[in-house]
């Protein structure tokens, strides 16, 4: 009888220690991310980044996005709806976190479309067709050119732009900022500089509401 209590007591002790470790670790890493944001506040939004919604909105959602990431694909309509439902109070700034193989090529294609004013069409098409071109074991970002063929791009110009130095520089800057801000999973959200730590749709909405209250109602 006594021995059973030793076993149970040990299990309880280890579970408690585990939970304590989780609390310590998460609060420490939250602190690290907060600090990274504070010391690199200019890394959140760069003038080169695509903006969805009212550019003068008082609440800014920064999303570090990987075009090959399934969760980014699932979140895209959610974030878009949040911006559209905010009556110009919320805007989305898209940053890139090309964590998968082939994502960098996809980003370059999207940015080339942006130079011709077709960015959101291209992004939505890329998200919709993600299962076709972004299989993680065999990514084929080049077929994106065909998949976005009908949005009205000057493909020859776009292909030249995609391999040009301007887009390459933009991508490098985004990757550097992603590392500075300790974004290692996508989508990585920041709302007015506050990182979304516990991931989820409801959590993102709560964070946006919280930041909305902070800046005051119109």
């Amino acid at each position, binding site marked *: 009888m006594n*021995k*059973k209590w*030793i*076993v149970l007591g*040990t*299990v309880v002790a*280890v*579970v408690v*220690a*585990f939970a304590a*470790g*989780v609390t310590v*670790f*998460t609060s420490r890493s939250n602190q690290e991310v907060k600090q990274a944001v504070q010391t690199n506040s200019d890394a959140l939004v760069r003038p080169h980044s695509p903006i969805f919604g009212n550019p003068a909105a008082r609440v800014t959602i920064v999303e570090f996005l990987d075009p090959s990431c399934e969760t980014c694909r699932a979140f895209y309509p959610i974030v878009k709806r949040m911006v559209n439902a905010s009556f110009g109070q919320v805007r989305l700034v898209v940053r890139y976190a090309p964590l998968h193989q082939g994502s960098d090529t996809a980003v370059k294609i999207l940015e080339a479309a942006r130079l011709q004013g077709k960015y959101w069409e291209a992004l939505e098409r890329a998200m919709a067709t993600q299962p076709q071109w972004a299989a*993680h*074991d065999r990514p084929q970002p080049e077929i994106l050119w065909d998949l976005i063929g009908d949005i009205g791009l000057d493909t020859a110009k776009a292909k030249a732009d995609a391999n040009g130095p301007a887009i390459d520089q933009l991508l490098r800057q985004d990757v550097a900022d992603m590392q500075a801000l300790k974004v*290692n*999973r996508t989508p990585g959200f920041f709302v007015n500089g506050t990182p979304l730590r516990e991931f989820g749709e409801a959590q993102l909405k709560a964070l946006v509401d919280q930041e909305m209250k902070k800046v005051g109602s119109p």
Partner: protein
Amino acid sequence: MSEERAAALNGKGRNAMFWTPLFLAWLIALLATSGALFLGEVMGKTPCMLCWYQRIAMFPLVLVLGVGLFTSDVRSARYALPLAGVGWGVAAYHLLVFWGVVSERLVPCGQGSSCADADVQVAGVVPIPLLSLAAFTGILVALCVARGMARGSARGEEA
């Protein structure tokens, strides 16, 4: 076989000496399991292929030995030994890969994290496969001691 001896082998004997080493083996497995879960689920390190095989050997030990402790059944050591042995082998192989003795090309590492990665370290110093090997070694030794003690006490009661 006398009833007494059978009882002693099952560990129902009065002086179940083997319980302490059995408990130690279980405790090591419990700590290793929670440590692996902490590294993977909390710290977000993706387990590599070889890590998974070690987990497959380590996690059941907590349950098998836990039931053995609850019923004071030394035979649980017999069921745990193959798991611990296989885990020990995989951990030793993993350590060789980590130290570069064995080329990683031979290892079935798919995409994701590499088994020879420097990220396979705790606090940047101790390689995780070394911890794993130490844990499996401790479990094996403790299990053998437990079995030895059970045999010893069985013989003692017979005499």
